[in-house]
């Protein structure tokens, strides 16, 4: 009942993949006991940031219920979405939660006209009944992303630019009037000159239409630009989560620090000074006991290699690092 207030509450979800390699099989924990909530009172943009292999895409797919979780639970407005079995329930869920994909050129079948997806969405969710009203619904959706039906009608994906396609993709997701969008790297394949227009669109959607967004990215600059809260992921773990200004401006976790430092800035004189340690084999890091970052952490301690750190609540955020264990006793979870 408590969950009713929450738009989304993700509790301790874990996803373990069995990688059936022939000689070196491993169990890979792609998402490890992740916990977060999104309130329903105010729409927010929540960013999941991390490098490739950090589990952010897996987490998105878990929330979308594209893949089964190993354990944990996900509640959407108080309903457990992990128990969805039939198509009817699934449709109802998809009506409320819609995805935006990374590659706008891949989002649509290159052999089909893009508007077919818009019409299909409108018809399948029962948003529009007759032919004309469908046109209206589609046009409205396109207008809300700064396009119009006229520009899009009858066009194939290759006839539109990446930016336009990504807008169409957003428009399609908006047709069932969802309250949550899950955008997986929505701008990484969009040209730099057009990128901001998409990012601004998300901001606008939150502010004007009250849509909450889970924004998944590796680009901390845009994350800082639009999001309210951010979670930094490393090998399936949330290492730091909190308001974006706090986390990115004064990072606590050594990983967040290095991550932030490594983002190149388009200004002069901010060149990197020190060399950094890189991991050679990803699989090793996944299999690591204790803190996953221990292998390349500049402030590594003995305990890091033995024990998985707990989440510490500190300065409006949670940090998963042994460094803060001594300072703060009030660990959560």
């Amino acid at each position, binding site marked *: 009942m408590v969950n009713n207030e929450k738009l989304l509450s993700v509790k301790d979800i874990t996803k373990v993949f069995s*990688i*059936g*390699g*022939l*000689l*070196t*099989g491993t169990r890979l924990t792609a998402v490890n006991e992740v916990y977060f909530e999104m309130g329903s009172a105010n729409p927010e943009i929540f960013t999941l940031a991390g490098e490739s292999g950090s589990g952010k895409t897996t987490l998105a797919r878990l929330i979308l219920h594209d893949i089964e979780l190993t354990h944990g639970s996900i509640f959407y407005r108080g309903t457990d979405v992990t128990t969805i079995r039939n198509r009817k329930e699934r449709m109802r869920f998809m009506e409320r939660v819609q995805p935006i994909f990374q590659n706008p050129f891949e989002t649509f079948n290159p052999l089909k006209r893009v508007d077919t997806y818009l019409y299909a969405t409108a018809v399948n969710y029962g948003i529009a009944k007759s032919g004309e009203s469908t046109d209206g619904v589609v046009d409205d959706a396109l207008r809300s992303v700064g396009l119009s039906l006229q520009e899009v009608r009858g066009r194939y994906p290759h006839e539109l630019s990446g930016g336009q396609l990504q807008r169409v993709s957003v428009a399609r997701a908006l047709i069932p009037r969802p309250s949550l969008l899950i955008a997986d790297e929505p701008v990484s394949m969009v040209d730099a000159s057009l990128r901001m227009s998409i990012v601004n669109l998300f901001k606008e959607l939150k502010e004007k239409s009250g849509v909450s967004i889970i924004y998944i990215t590796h680009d901390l600059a845009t994350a800082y630009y639009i999001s309210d809260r951010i979670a930094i992921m490393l090998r399936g773990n949330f290492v730091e989560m909190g308001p974006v200004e706090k986390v990115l401006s004064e990072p606590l976790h050594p990983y967040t620090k290095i991550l932030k430092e490594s983002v190149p800035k388009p200004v002069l004189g901010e060149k990197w000074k020190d060399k950094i340690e890189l991991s050679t084999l990803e699989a090793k890091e996944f299999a690591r006991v204790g803190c996953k970052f221990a292998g390349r952490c500049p402030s590594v301690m003995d305990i890091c290699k033995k024990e998985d750190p707990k989440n510490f609540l500190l300065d409006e955020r949670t940090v998963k690092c042994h460094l803060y264990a001594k300072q703060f006793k009030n660990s959560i979870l």
Partner: protein
Amino acid sequence: MKHGFFFRYCLQRVGQCLLVIFIGITITFIIPRLAPTDPVESAIATANMSGQYTHPEAVAEIRRALTELYGLEGGIFEQYFNFWKRLLKADLGPSYSSFPTPVMDLIRRSLPWTVGLLLTSAFIAWAIGNLIGGLAGYFSQRGWARTLGVFCMAIRPTPYYIMAFVILALFAYILPIFPLSGGLAIGVHFSFTWRFITSLLKHAFLPSLSLVIVSGGAWFLGMNSLVSNIVSEDYVVYAEMGGVSNRNILFRYVMRNALLPQVTGLALQLGMIFNGALITEYVFSYPGLGYLTYNAVFSGDYGLIIGIAIFSIIGVALAILIIDLAYPLFDPRIRHR
């Protein structure tokens, strides 16, 4: 833990293989039960046809005696159950046309010939077809590559029977280099002597050549198109940029990668062995399983036909299993992932 995965993978593959064998054998068990063949009548009819006198009253006696001897009593489920019981003891029952010789004996006698001939031919065809196909695919603009392509296309629809016969006529009759028929020369028996080996090779050459031409042609075409796709892969382009020699690019980059799907194809090809063998062995009078099948067909010996089919099913399933398990040797990526 580490071995666990390999073990589990193997177990899973073996289980799948067994299931496939089970379904395949069950199908081959059911189908002939629908056929109106009667081994007893076949035997009597054969004797009758060959002009052996039998008094009408004696015919009834023979019929009774043979029915008992062949052990054809019982319902279908009972027969099915007994069938598996025997099969697990590697007993395929008696051959009706060569009663009471066990089907297993007949197969055991013929199997080495077929396996020897066809396995060798399949591998030679695979090697040559892929080699030439790869070369032709890489140098696809050259005249010889195109000519070979047309030749292979023309070979494929030629009925195998005719092809085999023309080869036979050419090399055993018009140019009498090779023997007309058989698996060994007269008077030659299995031994490790020069005479035996040359005789074996001489007799196997033409049938093998005919098989190699046909399936080599198919490999050629397959490899050709695979290569033409792979030459535009990044690692090939990159190696070209690095000035790596054509030969190295062709063999180590293009062909090596194009061979991967062809390895899987080889498993399937081994399955075709039992189909291909029939006509080959018939034309060349080669004493293998195909000839055995041919005789079984013409004597209505379905017990033998099923026996051969079962062998084929097991053989092919095992071949596929082995290639599946060995595949990681060819593709290092499978080992990891």
